[in-house]
C-alpha cells in the first residue's frame, strides 16, 4: 500500500495566446503525502493546480486519478472525483455565512427547495471540530466578519468536508499573521493525519520543509525536480527554483 500513486499527471501543457504557461509537466501524487509545489512567480504552479482542480483544461497531456483517466475538465467533475482546491483568495462568498460557504454548490434541502439549516449547522460544526477551530462563535454571521485565519479555516473546511481524497492548497498562509499561520499549518498536518493527500503551493520554503514529504519544482512552465524533501537542501532548492 505504501507509495500508492493517487494522482498522476503526464505531459500537461497549457498555452495562453502566445505564452506557454506549462510545457510537458509530469508528476505523481502519492496517497497520504504532502507534495509541495514550489517555483518563482509566473512559473506555472497555479495554472497547473487550476487544471487539476478543473478550473482550466489542459491543451495536451493527461491526468489519472486512482488509475482512471480524467476525460472532462471542469470543477464539478473534479469535485465529484474527489479533488478540492483551497484557492489563494479563498473563494469565499463573504456576504454569506460559514455553512453556506462550506456547502456552496451542494446545499442540502428539505422537500427539494428549502435549505436544510440544521444539517448544514451540524456538518459545519463537525468540520470545524475536525480542524480544531474553536474560535468561531457565530456560525451564521457573514464570513466577512471573521478573521483571516477563521476564513482560511472555512475554505479548508470546505475542501475536507466531503471526505475528499486530494486537497490542493494554493498559498494557504500568504495573507495570514503568525498565529493564524501556525493554526493553518496544524490544520494541514491534521488533514494529512486524517488520510487526505495534499498538494501545497507555497513561496515560504520554511513552511515547505516543515510540512512537505516531497517537493516538485516548476520553472518556466516545466518541472525541473521532483524529490523527497530529505534529498534536497534548501540551497539546492533555491538554486532549482531560480536557475533550474
Amino acid at each position, binding site marked *: 500500500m505504501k507509495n500508492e500513486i493517487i494522482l498522476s499527471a503526464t505531459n500537461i501543457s497549457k498555452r495562453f495566446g502566445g505564452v506557454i504557461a506549462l510545457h510537458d509537466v509530469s508528476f505523481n501524487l502519492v496517497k497520504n503525502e504532502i507534495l509541495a509545489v514550489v517555483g518563482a512567480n509566473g512559473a506555472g504552479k497555479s495554472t497547473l493546480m487550476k487544471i487539476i482542480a478543473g478550473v482550466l483544461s489542459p491543451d495536451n497531456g493527461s491526468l489519472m486519478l486512482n488509475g482512471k483517466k480524467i476525460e472532462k475538465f471542469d470543477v464539478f467533475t473534479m469535485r465529484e472525483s474527489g479533488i478540492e482546491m483551497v484557492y489563494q483568495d479563498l473563494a469565499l*462568498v463573504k456576504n*454569506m455565512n460559514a455553512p453556506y460557504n462550506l456547502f*456552496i454548490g451542494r446545499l442540502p434541502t428539505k422537500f427539494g427547495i428549502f*435549505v436544510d439549516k440544521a444539517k448544514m449547522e451540524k456538518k459545519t460544526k463537525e468540520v470545524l471540530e475536525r480542524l480544531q477551530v474553536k474560535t468561531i462563535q457565530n456560525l451564521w454571521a457573514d464570513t466577512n466578519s471573521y478573521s483571516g485565519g477563521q476564513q482560511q479555516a472555512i475554505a479548508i473546511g470546505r475542501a475536507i468536508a466531503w471526505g475528499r481524497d486530494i486537497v490542493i492548497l494554493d498559498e494557504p498562509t500568504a495573507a495570514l499573521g503568525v498565529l493564524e499561520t501556525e493554526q493553518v499549518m496544524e490544520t494541514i498536518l491534521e488533514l494529512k493525519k486524517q488520510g487526505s493527500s495534499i498538494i501545497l503551493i507555497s513561496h515560504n520554503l520554511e513552511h515547505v520543509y516543515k510540512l512537505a514529504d516531497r517537493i516538485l519544482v516548476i520553472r518556466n512552465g516545466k518541472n525541473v525536480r521532483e524529490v523527497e524533501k530529505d534529498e534536497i537542501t534548501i540551497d539546492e532548492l533555491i538554486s532549482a527554483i531560480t536557475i533550474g
Partner: protein
Amino acid sequence: MDNNNKRKQVKERFGCFLKNNIAFVSLLILIILFWIWAGPNFMSRKNWTYISQQLPVVGILAIGMTFAVTGGYIDLSVGSSLGLAGYFAALGIQRYGPIGVVFGLVTPVIIGFVNGALFAYLKIPSFVTTLSTQVIIRAVLMIISNGSAVYISEGMATTGKSNNWLTNIGKFPYVFFIALFVLIIAHIIYNKTTFGWNLRAIGGNEAVVSLFGLQLMPFKTAVFGLVGFFVGIAALVNLGRVGAATTVSGQGMELDAISAVVLGGTPLTGGYGSVVKTFVGALSLVVLSNGITLAGIAPSWNNVAKGLLLIIAVAVALDRKKIGIVK
C-alpha cells in the same frame, strides 16, 4: 476613559440599529410627522384603509424588484410590463371571463424571461436591457391599444360573465390580504429556499458561486422571470383596483419600486436585502404621498419629498463597509 468607551459603544449600537432598521424608523418618523402636520384625519381608519388600498401594487412590484437588486441587477421594465400585463388581462377577461387573468400573469413572466435571457446570454447590462424593453413595451402598448383604455366591466356586456370578483379583489381588505400573502411567499422564497440563498450569494460574489458549479445564465434568467411573476400579480391587483387597463398604467412605477427597495435598506450593489423591509419602504412612500395630500401641500412637492427621503435614508443607513466602494 470608561465613560468614553461606553458612549462609543452606545453610539455604535445605535448606528447599527439605525442601519438595520432604517425602513421601520423612516416609516415611524413619517407617521409621527404627518400625524402632527395633517391632523387626526391622517390616523383615521378611513385614511389607513385608503393607504392599505394604495400600498399593494407598489409593494408587490417592489418585492419583485428586491429579487433583481439582490442579485446586483435592476429591472426598469416593471412599470411598462405592468401596463401591458394589465391590458392583456383586461382583454382576456373581456373575452374569456375570469380565466383571462392568466394573460396578465403570463405576459410579464415572458417579458421577464426575455429580459433575463438578453442580460444573461447576450451579456447586455440589466440596466440597458430593461431600459430598452421598458421603452419598447410601453410603445407596443400604445400601438396595440390605439391609446384607448380597456374596462374590465365591459366583459359583462360581451360575455355575460360578471367581473365583480376582480374589482372586489381590488378593494380593501382583500387587496391588502393578497399583498400580505405575496409578502409571506416572497419572504419564504428569499430566506428559506436554495434559490434565495444562491441569489444573495451571486449578488455577493458571482465568480465564486459559478466556480462551485451553479449555472449562472439560467439562474439569472429565472430571477427576471420571477420578477415578472410579481409584476403579473401587481398588474392584476392594479386592474382590480382601477377597473381598467390604460396606456399609462404602471408608468413611472419602476422608480417607486426601486425607491422602496432602497428605503428598505437593500444596497443596489446586491448581496443583501429583505422583502419585508422593502414592503415597509413601499409603505413609507405611500404614507408620504398620502400625508402630503392631507397636509394640504401641493402634489408637486410629493416627488421632492420622495427624493429627499431617499437621500436621507441612504445617507443614514448605507453600510459602506459591506458594499466596499460606493460608485
